[in-house]
């Protein structure tokens, strides 16, 4: 029986001017140029690339348009999601104009659970181009959104996901405690896929075939995001695809 193919999203974390490995978004190791990473992932046949410039909101710098302009020359048709520093619909439009295919918003929404701003962005660029990012921490089996700028927690129950369904196309759930770890993604996060009817992308500490299979077997999960470990080996992306060939489309260089 054939199943609908899911996506493997390559995640590039950017701190200031360089791509970095991130561990729980507070410990970073330098990797190099974002442009060359994008070029490499595109050549490998990545389904989609997510650029997360996570210091932009904290430093109130707005989106990194210069980086985006450079990157788009290297993506060669690979769909690109941009995230970081997005404040309003004007920023969102600028990002799309400068080569991103979709945008991901986090802080500007969950800071005040501002649906209006999110609706304006969605109206401007279309629901299909908008993803909501929710960094999650689990405490005593309760789910909290972690605000990485103010470092406080918001109970996820405060979000009306029925309203969001009309505004965003997907939600990226990041396991905050385990982001950047070797396969320590907390599978309790999958409970969210029962609560939220919007397609989910899971990210943070997902490195093994076993974990990928467990996550993607869930009907409401559309993709997984892999970050650090794509930088450790040649053809790392293709290896993930091969290990989980039932879920992903074949890449150009994957073995039969």
């Amino acid at each position, binding site marked *: 029986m054939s199943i609908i193919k899911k996506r493997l999203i390559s995640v590039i974390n950017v*701190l200031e001017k*360089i791509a*970095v*490995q991130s561990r729980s978004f507070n*410990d*970073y*190791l*330098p*990797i*190099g*140029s974002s442009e*060359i*990473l994008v*070029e*490499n992932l595109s*050549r*490998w046949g990545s389904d989609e690339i997510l650029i997360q410039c996570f210091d932009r909101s904290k430093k109130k710098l707005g989106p990194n348009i210069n980086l985006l302009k450079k990157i788009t020359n290297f993506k060669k048709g690979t769909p690109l999601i941009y995230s970081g520093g997005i404040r309003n619909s004007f920023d969102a439009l600028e990002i799309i104009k400068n080569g991103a295919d979709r945008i991901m918003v986090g802080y500007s929404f969950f800071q005040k659970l501002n649906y209006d701003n999110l609706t304006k962005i969605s109206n401007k660029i279309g629901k299909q181009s908008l993803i909501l990012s929710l960094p999650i921490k689990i405490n005593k089996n309760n789910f909290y959104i972690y605000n990485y700028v103010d470092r406080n927690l918001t109970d996820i129950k405060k979000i009306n996901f029925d309203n969001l369904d009309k505004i965003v196309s997907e939600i990226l759930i990041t396991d905050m405690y385990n982001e950047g770890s*070797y396969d320590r993604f907390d599978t309790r996060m999958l409970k969210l896929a029962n609560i939220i009817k919007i397609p989910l992308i899971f990210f943070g500490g997902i490195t093994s075939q076993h974990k990928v299979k467990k996550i993607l077997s869930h009907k409401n999960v559309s993709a997984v995001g892999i970050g*650090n*470990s794509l*930088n*450790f*080996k*040649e*053809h790392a992306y*293709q290896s993930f695809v091969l290990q989980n060939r039932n879920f992903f489309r074949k890449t*150009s*260089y*994957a*073995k039969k």
Partner: protein
Amino acid sequence: MQKNNNSVFNFCKKCLYSCQHPLGIVIDENGICSGCKIHEEKNTINWNSKWQELKKITQNYKLKKQNFYDCIIPVTGANDSFFVVHVVKNLLKMNPLLVCYNKYWNTPLGIKNLSTLRTKFNCDIIFQNVNPIKVKKITKATLYKLGSIYWHSLSGHTVFPVQISISYKIPLIIWGAHQGLEQVGMYSHYDNVEMSRRYRKNHDLMGVEAENLISSSDNLTEGDIFQYLYPDDHELNKVGTRGIYLGNFIRWDVKEQHEKMIKFYNYKTCKSNRTIDCYDYVDSFNYMNLHDRIKLYKHGFSKITDQLCREIRFNRIDRNSALTMVKRYEQRKSLYEKNFCEWLNINQKSLNYLLDTFKNNKFWKQIDVTRWKFKGLSYHNENMILRKNSAKLKYVQNSKIKVDAKYVTFGKGIKDF
């Protein structure tokens, strides 16, 4: 007194690196750089368990028939070559094929060391001698375009082993340490990072692969650069080529390792004019001279800073003494430039003029046409009391290169050492 320690020159509190490192570096909220943090892993890792991990990986590549090669080791006449061959041949009991890219600026010492490698370890070695006319054309192009004389050497050294892996169908390439991990903590030792085309382009080749050179230089043709082209992804995939780094599995300490190699195999070392380290790059006339001068122009620090950051991390020198040493050595004369000008057929004045155009104005202030003031990392890193050198760092110097020595273009062995 501190001259400038704002975010532009944010220095690590432990070593001498700043956030201006060309490989990229992250300095955390406590003022410690990613390189120093990753170095600390060397003191906590269970290296026995790592060694077992390495044995398990390499076991899969050992051939049952002893008449062929188990792996490839890229070698030069210096650096980690002896130690890597020692580990692979004597400790892992593998049969390696040594491969060496001829950079043409070989010192007699480097040739002697290569000869020792072949004979004392009883290994086969393949040299890649690219047509010197092409090498000179490429060197001219990269010098003008990138301000780099070393692009061809770095490119050749990193691509030749991969090409041999494909053509001989030997999947495993064994390298020494990963430069990005050792210097700036690009990866954890636990990541077991392997060789990749992306890293090579980004960091070894300054973002410019061979094919990019043609588009940026009218003088180069495809025929000039084809020996530097990285094999296609399909070919790599078909053979299963992978390059592992021993530094992920062995507590890597270059100084200690070199001293072992001197003792065991009479590895030849010599003094350099621009550093106290006698072990690194003794195979090349240019690495610790002209190339090092260019590094100072472009990046505001020279190789001695890299070497002493390493020694600070191993607690063999304190930060203040290291900074004093750097200031003493980094602007010393670069030797053997006459040889390079003759080899490339350019005159020294033209070379100097050209190199001045690559002086990074973050680190150099022009006073007049010929005079510049250095404002590199050591200039800004004066936030401590300088004192006379109290360092106890000692290096074994068992040989030397004559001032009038010439490039050894091809050589099987040198008797004079």
